[in-house]
């Protein structure tokens, strides 16, 4: 009920190998980011930096770097879902640079 967070920006970087996800907590309470899903596949913990679950105080923003197992291709669209430990999710579709 009191959780509100947004994915502010997604940056496809490192020649296709990485995605930076910027998440901000705009809600009333602190949250814990528990998982990242890209194209409906949960990203392994070892490929996420910083390590999840990640506590995020209200009003704060964090950059989460995901190292991809296969590189993103130019102009491709990715579905990215960020989930908290309480079960809230934010979903978005992001296009890699063309």
């Amino acid at each position, binding site marked *: *009920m*009191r959780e*509100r967070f947004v994915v*502010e*920006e997604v*940056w496809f970087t490192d020649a296709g190998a990485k995605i930076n996800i910027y998440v901000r907590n705009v809600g009333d309470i602190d949250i814990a980011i528990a998982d990242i899903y890209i194209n409906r596949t949960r990203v392994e913990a070892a490929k996420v930096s910083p390590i999840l679950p990640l506590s995020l105080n209200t009003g704060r*923003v964090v950059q989460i770097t995901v190292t991809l197992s296969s590189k993103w291709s130019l102009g491709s669209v990715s579905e990215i879902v960020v989930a908290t430990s309480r079960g809230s999710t934010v979903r978005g579709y992001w296009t890699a640079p063309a």
Partner: protein
Amino acid sequence: MRFLRRRRGISTVLGALYFIVIALMAFSLVMWEVGQYDAYQQLVNRMNQFDIDRMTENLVFRYPGVEVLASTPPYKFDIIVCNMGGIDINTTRIYIYDQTAGSMIILDKNSPTDFYSNGFVKAGASGHEIHAQSSYNVDERTGHIYWIKIVTERGRTFSTPYPLPRTIQGPGGAGSFIDVGPIRILFEYRAINYTSLTQQTPASGWSVPKNTPLFFYIILINVGTEEVYLKKESILTFMSYTRTGTGSKTTFFVLDSLATYPDNSKFNLGFTYDEVNKPYVLKPNLSDPYTGGPPVIVKFGAGNLSPDDHSVKFDNTVDQYLCFIGLAYRYKGYIFGQTIPFVAIRVT
């Protein structure tokens, strides 16, 4: 009998007390439940109001989007916005993505290098200037296309391409244009810019130096419904008002988008326009074709179609020139060519 009567009296009193205690407990329970429900309802209302406020936010970028204040490091510029949402907006971060260079900068209020101020935009504010300072150059005269994204405290994001799509009538008469086919050519103060070895940042091209290699920058917009691909035969050609013969006509062929300024020591194949693998692509605005897609800055400066000459210059004569744009492009699968009278410039 008297004793028994007494005992009966005590139990009556105790029974009454028990009843009162139970009634009080029940009442307290009801009150607690009411309190809990009230607190829950207040929370629901507060979060609903938060969501309503969030959805009410509406930040609109106003032409020209960015006003450049300092063109040398640290770069300073204002981002011009209007608050059309009826609620005050507090911005928390600005992302600027340089689409041409493939790099991104983040402006935070408290960052020591890339930061901004005046990020609180009152409801109804028009032409509000967010003052930004950065180690990265954000200036349309570089020929780069940027995406500016402003994030608000409530979690909304508002973004725009920069340079902004030109409106039909911009402020200060800035909206004059020529539409031919799917291409719009702007006529405004910044319609034509140039660079040289000593003028490496694009400057207004209404008056340019003689006998100096130059690159010209012009702005094209797609007002069609499909992408326009520019071909290598596209030119900018200048004809003297008064003279004929040698030196009276100078032609600049199209260059690669990453070309910056003519520099003899740096001439290489990187300036050569590659219409197959790296063409200028003018994107349409499908939701509003008449407004046009994102402006594209096209650069001219090659001497011919071959990749060996990037040092075109006017001769050593002060003169006035007529300028024509010769465009060759592919649109809807067909090749088009057109000549458009453009501007008149002074060579001094």
